[in-house]
C-alpha cells in the first residue's frame, strides 16, 4: 500500500489508536478497581479514575499469601512439567517422521494427523480419564488430558527438521558412526532451538491459562488448583454468596470486590511483564504454519 493521503492516514491512525485504547482500558479498569476503596466501589462502582484510593486489597492478599501463593506454585509446577513433557513427546514423535525412508511413515503420519480431524469430545474423554486411566483429583489430571501433545506442533516440528537440517550433516554423522539417538541429541536438537523455543512458549501459555482440566478433573482436591482455577473458584463463591445472601459460606472467607480484582491483577501481571520479551516468539508461534506463514 502506498499511502500519501492525509485524510486516509488520519483515519488509519485514529482506528489503530482507538483499538489500542480498547485493548488497554479493560486492564486499567481491572487495576483501578483493585486500588479503589471498598466504600467508593459500592457507591460509584468501578471507575477509570477512582477518587478514593486504598491498598487494603493488596494488604489483604499479602495476609492471604499462603493460599494464593500455593495456587501460584501449582501453576508453575503444572506448566513446568507440562511443557517439558510436551517438548520431549513432540521431538520424539517428530524426529522419526522426518526420515523420508522410514517404513510405515505414511501410516504413522496419518495416525497422527487424524487426531486433528476427528475427536471423541468431552464425554468419552472424560470417561477414559476417570474410568480407564484414573486421573481424577491428581496432579496428572491437570497435566495429561488434552494438553500433553499437540499433533499440529508435531507436524510443525517435523517440517522444521526436514527443511532446516541439511541431510548431508546427518549423513556425515552416520558415516562417523553416530546412531539415531546421538544424531538427535548432538545435531538435530542444537540446530532446532528456535522452533523448540517457540513451541515451548505456546505450550507454556496454554498450560498457564488452562482452567478446564481443573473443572473437569479436580472435583474435591481444590488444593491442586492452579491460579486460574483459584480465580474461577473465588468468582463462583462470590456469585453464590450474592444469590444466597444468608447462605452457609462464611462471608468473611470471600474476598470483597476490590480484592477479587487485585487477585486478577496479580494473576496477569507476570504474563504482562514478560510479554514484551517473548513477544517476538509469540508472534512467530501464532503465525506458524498459518496461511503462507
Amino acid at each position, binding site marked *: 500500500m502506498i499511502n500519501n493521503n492525509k485524510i486516509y492516514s488520519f483515519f488509519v491512525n485514529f482506528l489503530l489508536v482507538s483499538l489500542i485504547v480498547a485493548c488497554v482500558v*479493560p486492564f486499567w479498569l481491572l487495576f483501578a478497581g483493585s486500588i479503589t476503596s471498598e466504600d467508593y466501589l459500592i457507591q460509584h462502582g468501578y*471507575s477509570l479514575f477512582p477518587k478514593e484510593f486504598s491498598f487494603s486489597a493488596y494488604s489483604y492478599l499479602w495476609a492471604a499469601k499462603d493460599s494464593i501463593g500455593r495456587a501460584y506454585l501449582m501453576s508453575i509446577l503444572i506448566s513446568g512439567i507440562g511443557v517439558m513433557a510436551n517438548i520431549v*513427546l513432540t521431538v520424539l514423535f517428530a524426529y522419526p517422521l522426518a526420515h523420508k525412508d522410514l517404513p510405515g511413515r505414511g501410516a504413522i503420519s496419518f495416525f497422527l494427523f487424524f487426531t486433528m480431524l476427528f475427536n471423541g469430545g468431552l464425554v468419552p474423554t472424560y470417561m477414559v480419564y476417570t474410568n480407564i486411566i484414573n486421573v481424577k483429583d491428581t496432579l496428572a489430571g491437570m497435566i495429561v488430558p488434552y494438553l500433553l501433545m499437540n499433533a499440529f506442533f508435531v507436524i510443525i516440528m517435523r517440517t522444521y527438521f526436514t527443511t532446516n537440517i541439511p541431510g548431508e550433516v546427518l549423513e556425515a554423522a552416520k558415516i562417523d558412526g553416530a546412531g539415531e539417538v546421538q544424531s538427535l541429541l548432538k545435531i538435530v536438537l542444537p540446530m532446532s532451538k528456535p522452533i523448540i523455543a517457540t513451541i515451548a512458549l505456546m505450550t507454556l501459555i496454554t498450560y498457564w491459562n488452562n482452567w478446564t482440566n481443573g473443572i473437569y478433573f479436580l472435583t474435591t482436591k481444590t488444593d491442586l488448583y492452579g491460579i486460574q482455577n483459584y480465580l474461577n473458584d473465588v468468582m463462583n463463591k462470590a456469585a453464590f454468596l450474592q444469590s444466597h445472601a444468608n447462605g452457609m459460606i462464611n462471608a468473611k472467607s470471600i474476598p470483597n470486590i476490590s480484592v477479587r480484582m487485585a487477585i486478577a491483577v496479580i494473576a496477569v501481571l507476570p504474563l504482562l511483564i514478560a510479554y514484551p520479551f517473548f513477544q517476538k516468539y509469540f508472534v512467530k508461534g501464532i503465525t506458524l504454519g498459518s496461511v503462507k506463514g
Partner: protein
Amino acid sequence: MKKMTKTSKTWEMTPSVRSYQQIRRRRRFLRFLPLYLMLLPGAAYLIINNYLPMAGLIIAFKKIDYSLGIFKSPWVGLSNFKYLFSNNDALIAIRNTILYNLGFILFGNALAIVVAIALDSARNKYFKQVSQVVFLIPFLLSTVIVSYIALAFLSPSNGFLNNSILPLLGIDDPIKWYNQSKYWPVILNIVFLWMSFGYSSILYYSSVIGIDKTYYEAAVVDGASIWQQIRYITLPGLKPTIITLMLLAVGRICYSDFGLFYLIPQHSGLLYSTTQTIDTFVYRALLELNDVGRSSAAGFLQSIVGFILVFGANWLVTKLDKESALF
C-alpha cells in the same frame, strides 16, 4: 526406493536370494528400531487421549452402568437421541452454536481485514509495531481473566457500564445484564472480537505484507486512489487467505469456545436461551446434571457432523489453495 522394491519382485526368487532379502529386511528393521522406539510414548498418548475416546463414542448408544464399565454396558439403540430431542434445550444449543459462529466468522474476518490493511497503511514503523504488540494482549489472557474484566463492566451494582456509561447516555435505571438474555448475542460478539481480533489481524497482516509492492507502485503511477489500491490490489491479493480462513472456520461451526460461553455469562441460568452452545450443553449435562445419555448423544452428533465438516472444508481448501490446507 519404491522403484527398487517393485523391480525386485520380478526377480526370480532363488532360495539364496530369499535369505539374502531376509537378512536385508532384518538389518533394515534393526536400523529403524530406535526410531520406532522413539515413536512409542507419543503413540501411547495419542491412543489414550484421542483414539480411546473415539471408540468411546459408542456410549451414545448405550445406557452407562459404571459397575459394568463402558464397553459392557447394555445397548439402548437410539433412545439417548430421542431423549435428547424430547425438549428444546439441545435444539437451542445447536442453533446458538451455529448462529454465533456465523457472526464470529463475518465480524471477525471483516474487522481483521480492516485492521490488517490499516497496519499496512500506517506510516510510522514504531507505531505499527506497538499496535501489533498491544493487539495481541487480549489473546494472551485466559478466559477466566476475561470473565473478571467482563464482570467489571457488566456487574449490575458495581459495573462500569451501569455506573459510568449508561448515565452519560441518559439511561438512569441500571440494567441487569446477567438476567436478560437479549443483550448477550451482542455482548458475546464483542467479547469474542476483543479476544481474537489481534490474532486474526496478524494472520491477515502477514498475508498483506506478502503482496508484491511493485503492483502498488504501478497503480499509483497510473493515478490509483487509496480505495482503488485496496479494491483492486489488496483485497484480490488477500482472497486465498480469506477463503481459506473462512472455510476452516466453517469446518469448525459445530464447536464453540467453551470458556467464552461458560465463564463470561457467569453460568447464569436465565441466559441459557442465548448463551448455551453444544459445548456448554454437553458439559452441564455430564458434570452438573450427571446425565450421560443426553450429553453423550449431543457429543456424538457434534463429533460426527464436526468431522464431516472439517474434512469437507479441508478438502475444498486443498482444491483451492494447496499450501494452506491442513492436509
